[in-house]
């Protein structure tokens, strides 16, 4: 493909088992987005989204999950995709989870709805076997 494209980076894969892993994922996301040519603000958005999703894995999925970052082309634009997967009990009510102020762990209740606003797209697949969240941001 296009060799000059700055985003043909290896995907970043981080297992999430610990809050230290979440911080590591956030750091990696910031570097990854900047290496893909995203502006400082957008890179910060992506890193924050990664940390929110990582914290969710820690809080709701018994610390068993992973986060993968990839970069892709969409037409001529670069897209970063975050995939956060876990084998937790799943999200009971997705619409409710996307409502501002709703929380089950005494948090601020704006993590997941916040991620929806920080990113361009948010897809949630969930069952009692686990949850897979795909979030995309275009440059």
């Amino acid at each position, binding site marked *: 493909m296009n060799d000059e494209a700055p985003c043909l980076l290896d995907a970043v894969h981080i297992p999430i088992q610990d809050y230290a892993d979440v911080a590591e994922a956030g750091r990696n996301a910031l570097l990854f987005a900047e290496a893909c040519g995203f502006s400082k*603000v957008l890179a*910060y*958005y992506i890193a924050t989204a990664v*940390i929110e999703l990582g*914290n969710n894995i820690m809080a709701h999925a018994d610390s068993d999950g992973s986060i993968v970052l990839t970069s892709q082309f969409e037409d001529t634009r670069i897209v970063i995709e975050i995939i956060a997967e876990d084998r937790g009990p799943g999200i009971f009510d997705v619409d409710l989870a996307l409502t501002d102020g709703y929380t089950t762990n005494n948090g601020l209740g*704006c993590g997941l709805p916040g991620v929806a*606003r*920080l990113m361009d797209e948010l897809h949630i697949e969930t069952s009692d076997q686990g949850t897979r969240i795909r979030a995309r941001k275009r440059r």
Partner: protein
Amino acid sequence: MNALEQAATDRFTTLLETKRSVILDTWVDQFLADWEGTRHGNLPPEEIRAQSQLFLDQLHRLLQNNFSHSWQPQSADPIVQLLTQLSETWAKKGLAAAQSTFYILSFKRILLARYLELESDPAAFSAAVAVLDLVLDRLSLVVVERFEMTRERLIKQQSLSLLELSTPVVKIWDHMILLPLVGVIDTARARKITENLLNSIAEIEAMVTIVDITGVPVLDTAVAGHLMKTINAAQMLGTHVILTGMSPEGAQTLVKLGVSLGDITTRGSLKAGISEGLAALGKVIIDGHRRAG
């Protein structure tokens, strides 16, 4: 143990008696040569020599006393104690794990080479290899395991002391304190920070508290939540809290996340925060030079 293995064990025992000094010299020299150019640490060669000598003695004793397949390293074995101690020292001195493993593995090679000089029958030789594998592989596992344990303990200690260090509360003026936050704030740290801050506020009777977040890499909802709780608690003690050092990206992200900081006073820079704090205390900064001129 079959007859061949028993014969090999006996031969090793003899080798450790008759060729002791040659084996020791080759081993220590090879080990030190391998280290050349890497981190020697402050391990004096004499110390390695003395330890290696002890190792040879212990190995000799082990092979002599009814050595069998069922042998497993026990923490009470003198040879295991020797190796754990050695591994611990090396781990603390910052040697690589590969180096301490190489220590045992290079010894295996030397001993086998000596053995080959005496006996070249393939069946006997493979029995010898089996015996050495049995004892030295298990011992090298002891070394690796202890090495890892020591390192892990060091890391745990360091992160604990970092936790202590990274939450300083600084008195910058009478009744004015500064809490500079650096790094990732998780629940454990947030609790520690709140505790430290509230104690200092009470102790110094702080009327102004500046919380500087220049060093916080990413402001997510968890961090924002911790921060708000800390600040709310501080306000309950009657201090005026000023939040400084938020980056433009951080501010935009918080707005996107839908986090509102409520009625907390914020200033862009620490400098602006300090002058705001001084004003709140009724202090005025006067440029001494300008007045003199």
